[in-house]
């Protein structure tokens, strides 16, 4: 776990301040992959939580040029850059939420606005949220103005075993928000999730094994599929077996929704035996098998506010889940509100803050909503404030994990985001009911 390194580096703040030049190029360079409107910006006098090798800098500047972080340190300057004085307030990387349906969900109970789950009679793993990310979703600005700049967007639990393929998206102005496709295939290994799921654990295991066995067989003789005598009958569709290729080859993680400690043990053993890159989603009882997860280096995505025995697979749910996983050296990322992670993406800071109240180190909590998910889901260009990384930067009006705090400025890939959403427009329309002109409907 990198957490210990982080703490040590935080102590070396003074050295970092003394030698800003060592931290990256100060001179604005030509724009690289800049989004339209991504001009140079210099944020000054901030308490900078880099979540990277520079640790936390109590009074530093952040320079963003051409969509990228160009430098972090004291007394930076750049001709022509827009300057934002943070007045000592915190600056963090943009936050990343994991295991949401941001971009493919508008309203849960309105099916035509909802691209979250496959028609399982037709396909499973081949269902790919990357095909439907909607840059006009009103959920994106709502989350964005609260500092969320990235999401691991997954299919929802679908009532079957394989529910589809995930993508990492950014919450910028688009139109193309998909940063990484094939970010993980979701499998649900316990009867905890999807509506109408009638399968028991042995049913699910049987189907799970058969599907992955079929995928291996299919990929072993991919050209021969469908030829007479070329393959035995396989229950899965060709497209599903195709989509499982990167998973059985260890190139794309398998994201397994599982809560019970014993099932976690079993899937870890299966993944190790079959060379599958595993990420646990849910993990209500993950703390009970923290040593197993640490040993196998399997990361976990949790909402650590879950502390009730919601079913017989989650008897051990506790608020201390995050702190106990951290202590054991398990890498984890936070999901905002289990079951409602998309609309409530902005509660990710509250989840992290509560984990701190229940024993988690503050810096590690911030890492679990920035650097950790970036590493878990292989987003190399994001997650810390380091020269060369994307300019996802948030200026806060207070402790970023505090429920009373909010961002004052948000940058995604270097571009400053408008601090408006459908919700701010509703607020502004109705803020004064007594005022007669113009009438409400014209404001």
């Amino acid at each position, binding site marked *: 776990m990198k957490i210990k390194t982080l703490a040590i580096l935080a102590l070396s703040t003074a050295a970092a301040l003394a030698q800003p030049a060592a931290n990256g190029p100060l001179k604005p360079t030509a724009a690289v992959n800049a989004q339209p409107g991504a001009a140079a910006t210099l944020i000054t006098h901030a308490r900078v939580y880099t979540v990277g090798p520079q640790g936390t800098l109590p009074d530093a500047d952040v320079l963003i040029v051409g969509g990228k972080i160009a430098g972090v340190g004291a007394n930076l300057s750049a001709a022509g850059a827009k300057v934002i004085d943070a007045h000592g307030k915190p600056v963090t990387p943009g936050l990343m939420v994991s295991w949401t349906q941001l971009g493919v969900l*508008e*309203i*849960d*109970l*309105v099916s035509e606005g909802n691209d979250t789950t496959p028609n399982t009679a037709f396909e499973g793993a081949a269902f790919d949220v990357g095909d439907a990310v909607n840059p006009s979703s*009103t*959920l994106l600005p*709502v989350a964005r103005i609260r500092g969320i700049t990235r999401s691991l967007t997954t299919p929802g639990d679908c009532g079957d075993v394989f529910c589809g393929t995930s993508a990492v998206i950014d919450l910028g102005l688009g139109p193309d928000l998909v940063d990484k496709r094939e970010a993980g295939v979701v499998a649900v290994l316990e009867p905890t999730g999807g509506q109408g799921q009638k399968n028991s654990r042995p049913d699910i295991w049987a189907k799970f094994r058969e599907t992955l066995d079929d995928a291996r067989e299919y990929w072993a003789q991919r050209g021969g599929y469908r030829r007479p005598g070329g393959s035995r009958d396989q229950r899965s569709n060709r497209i599903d077996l195709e989509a499982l290729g990167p998973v059985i080859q260890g190139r794309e993680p398998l994201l397994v929704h599982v809560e019970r*400690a014993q099932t976690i043990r079993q899937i870890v053993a299966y993944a190790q035996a079959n060379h599958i890159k595993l990420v646990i989603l849910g993990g209500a*009882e993950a703390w*009970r098998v923290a040593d197993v997860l640490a040993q196998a280096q399997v990361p976990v995505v949790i909402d650590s*506010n*879950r*502390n*009730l*025995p*919601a*079913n*017989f697979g989650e*008897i*051990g*749910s*506790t*608020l*201390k889940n995050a702190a106990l996983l951290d202590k054991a050296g398990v890498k984890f990322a936070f999901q905002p509100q289990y079951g*409602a992670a998309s*609309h*409530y993406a*902005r*509660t990710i*800071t*509250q989840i992290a*803050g*509560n984990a*701190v*109240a229940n024993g988690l180190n503050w810096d590690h909590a911030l890492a679990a909503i920035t650097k950790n998910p970036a590493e878990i889901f292989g987003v190399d260009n994001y997650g810390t404030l380091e020269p060369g990384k994307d300019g996802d930067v948030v200026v806060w009006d207070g402790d970023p*994990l*505090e*429920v*009373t*705090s*909010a961002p004052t400025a948000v940058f995604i890939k270097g571009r400053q985001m408008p601090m408006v959403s459908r*919700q701010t427009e*509703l*607020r502004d329309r*109705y*803020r004064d*009911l*007594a005022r007669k002109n113009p009438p409400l409907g014209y404001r």
Partner: protein
Amino acid sequence: MDRIKAMPAWGAAAIVIVTLALAWWLIPGLHQGGGKTEVADQFPSDDFPSTYKPRSSKTTLIKGATVLTGTDQEIANGDVLMQDGRIKQVGKNIAAPAGAVVIDGKGKFVTPGIIDIHSHLGVYPSPSNEAMSDGNEATKPVTAEVRAENSVWPQDPGFTRALAGGVTAMQILPGSANLIGGRSVVLKNVWARTTQEMKFPGAPYDVKMACGENPKRVYGEKGGPQTGMGNVAGYRAAFAKAESYRAGWRKYWKTKAGDPPDRDLGLETLALVLDKKIPVQMHCYRADQMATMIDVMKEFHFRIAAFHHAAEAYKIADLLKENDICAVMWADWWGFKMEAYDGIPENIAMVDHAGACATIHSDDELGIQRLNQEVAKAMAAGRRMGFPVSRAHAVAWMTRNPAKALGILKQTGTLESGKMADVVVWNRDPFSVYAQAQMVFVDGALLYDRGNPAISPRSDFELGQEDNAHTGGAGQ
């Protein structure tokens, strides 16, 4: 509010005795024993009487804390004295009575116990499964005859977690599948074997009704209602029938001629609603739906105490104020269904700013554990739009205002002498994400102490569950 005239302990005891005696004679069924129900000249109102008794308490003085009284006051370096289950005194430099337990409040905060006006603990308990799904009698759209108290499972572990979050009382409601879902029950958050032992003594009943999508979703393909207009016709038809029912009984009571009318439990409840003895707790998201329900209320002369969920309350805060109806809201829930699409984080602060009664609620077994944080978010949203919301004021959104909407403000909801000593000691400003309830008192009895695993209730369900034994009861 330095010194409030304290009610002597014998005064409180006398009130309890008088109340019980009155109840004995006024409530049919209590003094009539078994056998055939004889109906007095009014509809019966409490058939499952509370058997709640305050747990044993010690005289306790919290000294030197920041006290948020729930009456818009913040007392720095303040003291709270609890005696005989009641708030005895709130102020500064209160002398400890002989033998009192003295708690050092330095750096700590004290608030009234949190009241969650919208919970389904016990009726949709943990674990959640079909066997325990007792919140909606979704067999027909009007089920005024059912009562949440007959569904509550007191062993729901959610009660213990809510206690660790500082919740001392809750309204447990039937769900919102039905136009008229049945009676709610107000509970004290105490571990008990029976629901009656939890029942808040003297709390009025309420009736749960629901606007909008849910009844349509449940009954649209099952005989209706299928539309908004079908919903409204359904409420009106039910109350029209209740009017006739009430008239029939009134006539009988007056003349005593012939046999009494047949007793109908649903219409009896609705007749009590018409008599304004049972207020309505109305699930409604949209502004237009709430306005329509205000008209239905006026047509049949009943009282809506509160609109629950009220995602669009901010659009009609003036109307709510004019009609003295509370809005019961979330801090930031929105968008999970069409009628919640316009929910905004400033809702609570905007309703409050307009002078209407604003209240937080959870409707959720996890959210109920953090209502202080939910209020904090709403307070911060208000401040960011320029409203000077103090924490002394915001605390009322989770204490005084829900007590008002439930008709129990005379007993609890603020730290004022003579009231039930429902009190929370926080380790820091409760409007911080890092704050935790350290001690929770219900009627002066210490029922949760974060620092003492022995003072932390555990439900029967959690005994012998190997996985659960590790972490420690209510604060798990």
